[in-house]
């Protein structure tokens, strides 16, 4: 914007151009803020991952004595569910951009269902693990400290994401977004992919190595 042409909007007499410019600028700010929020959230996970790797390599062997190896096959299935939900979310956003409302809604509902399925799977995994560990978190030692804290924190993020997507679905039904102005949906998609990426990290360090 050259200075000479920078006329400020006058209240009550805004042109479409001004409104669009304000929207674009506001969206830009929010996008940057949201990305930085995700960076700081990543640091939170990284700190716990550091703690896990530190405890894992503190010379007691892993898994610690008395703890069985994790059930990789089940977790792999559950991971596929979560990664699939990332794909469906992508389709939801693309359909929104092209104005296909029904397709958008179906893909978004599929995403939410897959997210809930993942949480259910995680609950089942916790239940079986806890049964083996005699139903106490504190009795699970440094294994439980790192595994349940990290995957639990991720599970809370998935839960928050499911709530976020549900709110977005209701908002879009109520007409809050248009195919041109949909920052909330962008943020929701970014967040959901972020949760996916965190799970890739956690799956690798808990089940694969």
């Amino acid at each position: 914007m050259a200075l000479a042409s920078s006329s400020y909007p006058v209240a009550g007499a805004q042109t479409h151009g001004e409104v669009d410019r304000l929207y674009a600028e506001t969206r830009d700010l929010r996008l940057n803020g949201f990305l930085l929020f995700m960076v700081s959230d990543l640091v939170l996970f990284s700190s716990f991952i550091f703690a896990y790797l530190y405890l894992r390599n503190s010379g007691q062997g892993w898994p610690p004595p008395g703890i069985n190896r994790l059930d990789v096959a089940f977790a792999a299935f559950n991971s596929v569910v979560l990664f699939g939900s990332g794909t469906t979310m992508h389709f939801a956003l693309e359909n929104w951009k092209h104005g296909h409302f029904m397709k958008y809604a179906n893909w978004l509902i599929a995403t939410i269902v897959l997210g809930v399925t993942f949480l259910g799977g995680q609950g089942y995994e916790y239940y079986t693990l806890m049964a083996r560990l005699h139903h106490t978190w504190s009795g699970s030692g440094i294994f439980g400290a790192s595994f349940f804290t990290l995957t639990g924190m991720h599970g809370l993020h998935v839960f928050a994401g499911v709530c976020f997507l549900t709110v977005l679905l209701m908002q879009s039904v109520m007409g809050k977004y248009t195919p041109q102005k949909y920052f909330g949906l962008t943020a929701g998609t970014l967040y959901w992919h972020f949760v996916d990426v965190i799970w890739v990290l956690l799956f690798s360090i808990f089940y694969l190595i």
Partner: protein
Amino acid sequence: MSVAVHGEVHGGGVADHIHPEPQTFVRKYIFSIDHKIIGIQYIITSFVFMGLGGLLAELIRVQLMHHSGALVNPDTYNELYSIHGSTMVWLVIIPLLTGGFGNFVFPLQIGARDVAFPWLNMVSFWIFPPAGLMLYSSFLMGAPVAGWTEYPPMSLQGAAGTSMWAAAIFLIGVSSTMTGINFLVTLLKMRAPGMTFTRMPLFCWAQFATAPLLMIATTALGAALAALFIERQFGVPFFDPTKGGSPVLWQHMFWFYSHPAVYIMILPAFGMISEILPTFARKPIFGYKMIAFSSVAIALLGFMVWAHHMFTSGLAPWLQLPFMILTFFIAIPTGIKIFSWLTTLWGGKIQFSTAMLFAVGFIATFTFGGITGVFLAAVPFDLHAHGTYFIVAHLHYVLVGGSLMAILGGVHFWYPKMSGRMMNETLGKWTFWLFFIGFNGTFIPMHWLGLLGMPRRVATYDPQFQTWNIVATAFSFVMTAALLLFFINALYSLRNGRKAGPNPWNARTLEWQIPSPPPYYNFKHVPAVFAAPYDFAEPLPYRGLEGELDPSVPAPVPAGH
């Protein structure tokens, strides 16, 4: 991103972030979304907590007047210094420098009408006083006893107040993270047209280097605090060695935050000094770019040196060496700043106002504290001095002689802008000299005590150390008197100070070109910027400040779109 060539101004971020004028008292002064009011709220709250933390400090000093402990039993003494340290770090210095002065000053300096997320800013502030009260409520249930660093296993054995401490600091961390995100987006996106990075005032550069530290390091601390809380409340072992955990893990997690936090507590102070010195030396700041870039260099290096706090924790010797060398490296950008400030003074037409006295005092005491920091970075010396009063002396030289000195200078400098009235200069000069003498008298003897082997964090000590402890306590009363005088001056001047006018110091950054106190909209027109602000021989590098208020209130874009 703004680029300007030959006086032409292109680009420019979100300039017009104007709010409707707040109508009610509550919207204007309590739940305000105006960055200036929020900044002042932070400053007042932090100074209240400073009164409490200072009271604890005096109790500590009185206790140490006699070698067998003059006042309280050792358990209570542990609580006193733990809460004293936590208060001063998290409730006083960090909020004053970032939420307080950061909020008030830098949006004005970059020509913005507010920060990027005003509502988030309000939430950040309103987390802070309740969290502070939570910290103090821990006295009711047995306050933490392991110092502000709360090393396990002692922190695992502390009373219930330790969990309250962890929760309170966690909340303050959330507030800091939000502030960091807010400031970073504001600095990146909301500079006035023509305000390129190399035209930003140096205080803005300092905030720019600090914001990522707030955002990243504080979150890491949040993880450590959450782990401590979980371990204390649910018995899940992270840090307890008898259950397979590792106390050294806490030290890594804690210092990965708390070393960058040291720079959170000093970089904005550097920025304040870089504003005060050229204004009262009537000379362009020397080495503008070097000062600006060295802040960023310090922030980056700050993430790579945390383990120098852990040389006595059984860190592998091959790991100690790189941490020692990287820590030495930090002396280079810091030295660049100090020499640039000295060169700014060289040949200047110096006016020793109170703010300038504090700035010059800062250079002296901070350099002293910085040099003892280089001592401590050296592994052999650290093994000798670790856990002694030498550490106490060093950290107070950089945090009180550094950060607090800059803050007091900053208050005297920006008070006219905040309140519209001047502070009393005679009282101000008394404040400075009492503070300077009291401060040095309190903390210089601690270097000697430390080298002689007096351990920190103990309620009683060997009788041979008594003389210097009495000296330190006596001078600490002088320092307290100075701070009381400062509070009296600030309150008295609010009503009785001389009217300041827009620019009492003849300063050149943008905040001085608008009325004092600034109106809710900050700038009638968002100005265009043509150069960095420090060239005192040239006319002001701004255009478009004058004229009628642009009445525009942009149509609010509904949230969440």
